[in-house]
């Protein structure tokens, strides 16, 4: 007996056309039988050159671009960009505007996490049921966005200095309804999946990410918190008045796919808490500081970062005093989180790789920009 059965490793392309890659993303996996022995992430299929295009447009015209980077959390992207411009130009946002921004960002986090946990459950093989249930709740949130901004997915709602429109009359009852519906839904998901032995055996101990690895790869968001690191920009570097609200940071135990899942579920609970507080204490007054349409910020640079549903979303802007940014750069959380994907997939099976990919919750629009 000299060794195992000789087998020829071969390469399979998971993607770019594959049911579980969440867009046109490709893993070039070298497999030995079902075991992944090497994985190469191939991206760029959705590249739209946003960062360069943005240098040709005015600051306000760039807001719709940010909708389309992470198309599952357009509000957060709007917010990050507007914060960066406001930092660059030194614009103050009125209290009502900040509160609306917080409500929108947290609702967006709820919607995005609905999508994330549904798609993740789908990747473990739960045939569409969790994803449909999650979509049912997400629809309600998108309805709120529609009422407020006129669009469901690419809202383009935040403006430099505040938000585009004031809240409409049905906004508050709708949000109250969502706040009443969501906690039972989260408990339902917990019962359906966290208590399911098959789900646990598929996700527990799969794609383990040590805290050292997580910090070294500069991960952020639920990926980082799943590994047991208490870090949240809303607490560590508060913006939009997040310091007024009472919420906690959920952290996982071992950094596996299951921990990332339960962290997302718990983040939804915390978001519900934040939205409720913000809605209760919604100040009156102006919702926007008037800024000129062709804004010319002074020369300089600014970096603003927010906690998007996927992690630290940063916008870096350089101004040369002109009406459009001299340099526009996005730090997309999905892209950075991707750097740990190889570590997590190699050594597992193909099925595990799919589960890990689902637990990363990547959005290809954000990776390729």
């Amino acid at each position, binding site marked *: *007996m*000299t*060794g*195992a*059965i*000789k087998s020829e490793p071969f390469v399979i392309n998971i993607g770019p056309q594959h049911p579980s890659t969440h867009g046109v993303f490709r893993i070039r996996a070298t497999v030995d039988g079902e075991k992944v022995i090497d994985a190469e992430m191939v991206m760029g299929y959705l590249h739209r050159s946003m960062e360069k295009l943005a240098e040709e447009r005015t600051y306000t015209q760039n807001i719709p671009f940010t909708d389309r980077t992470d198309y599952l959390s357009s509000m957060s992207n709007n917010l990050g960009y507007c914060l960066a411009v406001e930092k660059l130009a030194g614009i103050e946002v009125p209290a009502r505007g900040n509160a609306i921004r917080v409500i929108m960002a947290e609702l967006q986090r709820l919607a995005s996490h609905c999508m994330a946990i549904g798609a993740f459950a789908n990747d473990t093989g739960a045939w569409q049921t969790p994803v449909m249930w999650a979509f049912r709740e997400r629809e309600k949130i998108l309805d709120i966005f529609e009422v407020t901004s006129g669009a469901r997915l690419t809202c383009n709602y935040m403006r430099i200095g505040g938000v585009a429109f004031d809240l409409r009359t049905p906004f508050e009852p709708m949000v109250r309804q969502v706040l009443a519906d969501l906690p039972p839904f989260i408990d339902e998901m917990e019962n359906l999946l966290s208590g399911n032995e098959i789900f646990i055996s598929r996700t527990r101990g799969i794609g383990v990410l040590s805290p050292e690895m997580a910090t070294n790869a500069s991960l952020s968001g639920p990926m980082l918190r799943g590994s047991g690191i208490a870090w949240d920009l809303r607490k560590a570097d508060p913006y939009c008045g997040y310091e007024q609200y009472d919420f906690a940071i959920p952290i996982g135990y071992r950094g596996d796919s299951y921990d990332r899942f339960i962290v997302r579920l718990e983040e939804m609970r915390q978001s519900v808490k934040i939205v409720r507080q913000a809605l209760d204490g919604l100040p009156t007054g102006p919702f926007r500081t008037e800024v000129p349409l062709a804004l010319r910020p002074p020369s300089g640079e600014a970096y603003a970062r927010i906690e998007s549903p996927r992690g630290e979303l940063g916008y870096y802007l350089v101004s040369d005093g002109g009406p459009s940014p001299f340099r526009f750069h996005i730090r997309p959380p999905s892209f950075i989180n991707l750097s740990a994907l190889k570590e997590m997939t190699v050594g597992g099976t193909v099925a595990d790789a799919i589960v890990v990919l689902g637990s990363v919750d990547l959005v290809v629009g954000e990776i390729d920009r």
Partner: protein
Amino acid sequence: MSVGIEHFLTVGALLFCIGLIVALGKRNAVGVLMGVELMLNAVNLTLITFSRFAVSPRPVTGQAFTVFIITVAAAEAAVALALAVAVYRNRDTVDVDQMNLLRS
């Protein structure tokens, strides 16, 4: 038009001979195994034929023997395939012509 014991025995004999050709002639170890399985099937067919046609005080014997042959064939297939895999692992070939380790 009727079929008798000769017809069945002829089919069994031809099947046996085809199995023999396969078992003797194939270079691939798996092919040899398939030939052996064909021969065992031919024997089974013959046994069942006798059990059906022969004047015997205990015709069930033919069927009982077939059960044993099927059992042995299953065991033989498992071991032979394991051998083929083991040989391939050690010698990088399943070619029976190349399995001449005992030749100096």
